[in-house]
């Protein structure tokens, strides 16, 4: 726990070390996302603002399109874990020397960034509520916020495990950045970050049930909006945990095999 606190504090200091970047990121993402979702859905709904698309009203759709990319950013935490860079330039050496688990250290960094983005997300939501107004169908419930936060921690850990495998391929190939880009694209598409999953065709809904992506963005946003029942939400969490266990096993295997090839270049 002491180590968690120490790494968390160090990473927060790192985030806050560059004030300019922090504030640009904070305001840029919030207002950019808000403007984009408002104008996009305004033109789609056109003059018929009372229409219902994918089970959501105009107001709910704007709220969803505002929250979904912010949620995606939150669960992506560090964005790049830099495991591939550590393997490529020998940065891994110091974590092998220090008496700690490399993945534990990276995971704490990831969660710290997730919590930092979460602060940004809630600030954006408060701005939304004050200046735009929450949709009339929106149901505030403190339990939903609790579920949302728990959901983001699980989703962030799952993203971490997926990204770690992609980046660990650097043990075998020098430049693996494209794999991370591919993973991001798949998550963006299948998690509901671009479009609500309710807008996807009927046949794909069954598929989403078994995939880990639904719980990463669609479920947390919907539960926060009070637009999903707890049973469906819990199912998506269980599916994410099952996938997390499977991916963690693969991660361990890849890590052990990759270490045999590691040359610690850079020193």
């Amino acid at each position, binding site marked *: 726990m002491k180590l968690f606190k120490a790494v968390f504090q160090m990473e927060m200091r*790192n985030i806050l070390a560059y004030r300019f970047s922090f504030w640009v990121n904070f305001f840029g993402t919030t207002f950019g996302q808000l403007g984009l979702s408002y104008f996009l859905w305004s033109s789609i709904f056109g003059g018929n603002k009372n229409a219902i698309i994918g089970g959501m009203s105009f107001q709910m759709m704007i709220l969803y399109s505002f929250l979904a990319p912010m949620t995606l950013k939150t669960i992506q935490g560090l964005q790049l874990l830099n495991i591939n860079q550590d393997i490529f330039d020998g940065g891994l050496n110091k974590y092998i020397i220090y008496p*700690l688990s490399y993945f534990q250290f990276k995971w704490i960094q990831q969660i710290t960034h997730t919590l930092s983005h979460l602060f940004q997300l809630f600030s954006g939501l408060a701005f939304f509520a004050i200046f735009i107004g929450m949709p009339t169908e929106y149901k505030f419930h403190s339990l939903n916020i609790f579920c949302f936060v728990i959901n983001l921690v699980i989703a962030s850990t799952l993203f971490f495990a997926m990204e770690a495998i992609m980046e660990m391929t650097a043990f075998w190939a020098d430049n693996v950045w494209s794999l991370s880009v591919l993973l991001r694209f798949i998550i963006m598409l299948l998690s509901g970050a671009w479009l609500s999953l309710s807008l996807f065709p009927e046949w794909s809904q069954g598929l989403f049930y078994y995939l880990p992506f639904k719980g990463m963005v669609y479920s947390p946003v919907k539960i926060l909006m009070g637009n999903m029942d707890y049973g469906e939400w819990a199912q998506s969490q269980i599916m994410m945990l099952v996938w997390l266990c499977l991916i963690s096993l693969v991660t361990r295997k890849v890590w052990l095999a990759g270490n045999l090839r590691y040359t610690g270049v850079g020193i």
Partner: protein
Amino acid sequence: MIHVKNLSKTFTVNEKEPGLKASLKSLFKRKMVTKYALNNISFNVREGEIVGLIGANGAGKTTLSKILSGIIHSSSGEISVLGSDPWKREISFRKKMSLIMGQKASLWWDLPALDCYLLLKEIYQIEDADYHTRLNFLAETLGIKDQLKVQIRRLSLGERMKVELIAALLHNPQVVFLDEPTIGLDLTAQKAVRQFLLDYRQKYNPCMILTSHYMEDIETLCERIIILKEGSIVYDGPLKDIISKYANEKQIILTLVNGEILKERVARDGISERITSLLKLHDVLDLSVTEIEISEIIEKLLRKGVDA
């Protein structure tokens, strides 16, 4: 403290011909070549000993440090450091050793050193009192106390090396691997680092393995050296013995009355005879007989091997 027996390490590397055609070909098929980085080497290091690892680039020095610190695994042979197999990377082992890489930062660049040290305090689980005592000793000995609150990326190369040294020694390791600790430093900083390492060794008595291309580092710090050539040990013994063993000549330096200086290499057993003849030939103001420089002997050994 360190036992190495019949250690070998091979690397498989990709070899590519120059040019676009070869680049395209390498997308489908690559030529892999196996190279020996270390070839059947054995040695032991005792507590409190500082051993200098010397060798040309690619001789296997850094590979050896990496294997002994658990960063990479060996291809064959037995290794024990502090009673552990480094490759197992046991937490108890990692708490007792340290690796200082002159060319590689191990701290977090965006933070001041003091913030990094607080993290290391938790990683190594150092008691508050020990942490403050050691930090004070290390910072004062290195004369870097005023720079500890400055972001590391803003420090000079010499200052960075000093904060790295503190980070590596804060947990009082029993085995320290020093890989080029003075590389890129100016003469004053080099001297300060050397003196610091001597002071540290006197106070805590760790075993140290030093890799350096600077002969002054080796001569100041090491009583014993291991010379590596193409992955094999060509010399392992006291630094001073290398002169009696491999330098069969001495140097006579004559300062003549007219100010001219003459230098001549002479076989050890023919010195008195040669001095007599030189004194007859020249008007000599001063005469001295010196040993050949250690660096020269080592260079010769590296170039020609033990038969030099």
